[in-house]
């Protein structure tokens, strides 16, 4: 494999992992109108949950259950569901903003736990040397990466299919109705708080799944992997791709991540070393501008929302 191809494989693994997060966010925001400001927190719970369950036994750590990888990922997803339930039950019957505030809070708290609960999370050092699924079967890292790209692509495809099928059934109509007019939905026999809770938990579980896949690929977790900027990046992916559309979610994930990677490359190539220290800030400003400008000038993103959600009403 040539250098560029090797990088492309690596790039796509990460981008497709993020696309699963974006699809999880999409059913929350795009279909149901839930503002999750703590995406990175749930991604981290999934990652740490998986890492703790899959990791080998170590004397100074609580975890180390050495579970098979798929089981560990499921465990991480279950933890995500639990956390989402706690936040959701507190906030989803209240003003919509409260969910945003509480999710923002949980993301910060998760980072603190990751950093401080050393005997569980490895603290600042993180958890290292985690087994990567089926790693032994491949001779070269490039071959393994190609295999893992296949795994992530299949997972992303599966999630896409599952969500697309579900939102094109009466379920999607229900979500959209709750988003459009909660009072009317309530007057027609639906309990919006319950619907929201269901969607919120489901979306967070998908974020957890992506966290697990990320761990499987990197073989390592550390608190530095889950900085708040990731939440902004994920949001930029969704809003640029077009919220309310799962294809948009995938396109946005790949597109924005490419933009991010390329802007980093461009800055390192074209900006004089003396100004490099501003480079990261410029990259982040690009993300911020992307969010705000898309919101104002192209609220439907690249690929807008389909007018009719349920396929049987076509």
């Amino acid at each position, binding site marked *: 494999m040539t250098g*560029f191809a*090797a990088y492309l494989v690596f790039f796509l693994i990460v981008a497709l992992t993020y696309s699963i997060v974006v699809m999880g966010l999409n059913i929350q925001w795009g279909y149901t109108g839930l503002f999750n400001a703590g995406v990175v927190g749930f991604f981290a719970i999934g990652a740490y949950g998986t890492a703790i369950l899959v990791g080998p036994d170590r004397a100074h750590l609580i975890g180390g259950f050495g579970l098979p990888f798929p089981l560990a990922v499921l465990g991480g997803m279950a933890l995500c569901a639990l956390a989402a339930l706690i936040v959701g039950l507190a906030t989803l019957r209240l003003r919509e903003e409260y969910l945003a505030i509480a999710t923002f809070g949980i993301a910060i708290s998760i980072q603190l736990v990751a950093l*401080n609960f050393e005997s569980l999370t490895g603290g600042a050092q993180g958890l*290292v040397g985690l087994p990567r699924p089926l790693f032994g079967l491949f001779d070269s890292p490039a071959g393994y990466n190609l295999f893992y790209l296949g795994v992530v692509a299949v997972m992303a495809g599966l999630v896409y299919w599952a969500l697309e099928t579900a939102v094109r059934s009466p379920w999607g109509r229900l979500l959209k109705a709750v988003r459009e007019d909660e009072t009317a939905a309530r007057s027609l026999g639906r309990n919006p708080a319950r619907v929201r809770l269901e969607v919120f938990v489901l979306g967070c579980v998908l974020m957890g799944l992506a966290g697990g896949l990320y761990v499987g690929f990197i073989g390592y977790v550390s608190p*530095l*992997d889950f*900085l708040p900027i990731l939440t902004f990046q994920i949001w930029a992916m969704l809003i640029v791709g077009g919220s309310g559309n799962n294809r948009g979610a995938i396109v946005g994930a790949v*597109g924005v991540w490419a933009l991010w990677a390329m802007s*980093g490359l461009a800055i390192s190539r074209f900006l004089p070393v003396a100004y490099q220290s501003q480079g990261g800030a410029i990259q982040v400003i690009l993300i911020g501008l992307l969010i705000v400008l898309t919101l104002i000038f192209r609220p439907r993103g690249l690929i807008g929302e389909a007018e009719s959600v349920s396929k049987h009403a076509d």
Partner: protein
Amino acid sequence: MKSMIASGLMGAGLVLSGAASAQAQDCKIAVGSVLSITGSMAAIGSAIGDAGKLAIDHFNEAGGVNGCEVNFILRDDQGSPNVGVDAAKTLVEIEKVPVLLGAIQSGVSLPILTSVTVPAKVTQISCCSSAPSFTELAREGGTQGYWFRTLPTDRPQAAVLATIAAEKGYKKIAVIHVNSDYGVSLATRFRDDAEKLGIEVTGVTPYNQEQASYRAEVNAALQAEPDALFLVAFPADGATVAREWISFGGSQNLILSNALRADEFVESVGAQYLENAYGIDNAQVEGESVEAFNTSWKDAKGSDPNGPGLHVMYDAAAVALLAMEQAGEADGTAIRDNIRKVTGGEGEPIYPGAEGFKKAKTLIAEGKPIRYVGATGPITFDENGDVTGPYLIYGVKDGELATLDRWDKARVEAALEKLQ
């Protein structure tokens, strides 16, 4: 879907055109570096990058490596492993660098090492990652010899600091440390060593980086009324902690970690409060080779090279380039195999600066052995890629950073022995 393919192609086009232009200019060697230029290490990161760039400039002045111009490509990891890994991956796969300098934090260096450089057989030299886990990894064979670092591990640092604390007669010491792998391991080692020397460690309080206030941590550490504070920190946060510590009546007997040897720290805290402070660093302040670096830094930047990571970064870059010259090819494995040929040993000493490198090039061309004596003094890598070397004890005199004492290798080893 269309636009996804389009953006993919655009990306490919951009990168390929870049690669093509690099090939067109016949003889250029790329040296990659991943450092924290923004994020939690931003305060020290860009100066470290400058130190690396300085070594490259010196080498180019001396005629480049094997007659080729060296191109320094610096990437920002933003203090985050996933960004760092991505940056390293582009450097290795697209820019085709044979050697990677960095990263600063161990938490970033480690994933780069295991998932990028070792699999691609690229040599990685870090200026600043001090975590003990690298030594363990090397011992287990996980680095395949591709890992080097130009700063010593924290084991001897802790021993020296504790020994001095005992000599000064401190009885109760509080420890406040940055909650990172660097801080945790140095603080823990110091506590163990100090207790062996009969000093009571009243508490080990971690703090999280980049908080605006550490009043709570300081208050917790103050509770036991210790007569000295060991502060393991980076300059910005360290200044915050020290200011609050002193403001709230903490003892001005301060013991400082190596990262605090920075003008920024002294300025922010105020030199008058640091009269009784001492700290450790592995950079020498005396000696011809050190002077050579200090002078050229001052020429280039107009200020003294006081800051963490500068000397070690220069050495990391210099060692890489000399090994490349010695190997005669820009290949990761060749660099790995030649690093020990240009350091240690009995060859002709080579000092930092364009002049030194010119001399090295001539000697290598003549097939004579060389020995790099760098900005940190003589350098010898052990089988795990770690260096051991002399230390200096710094403090503040007349409002400025000053060297108070020097510990050569023998003295360090004696101190270590006592603590066994």
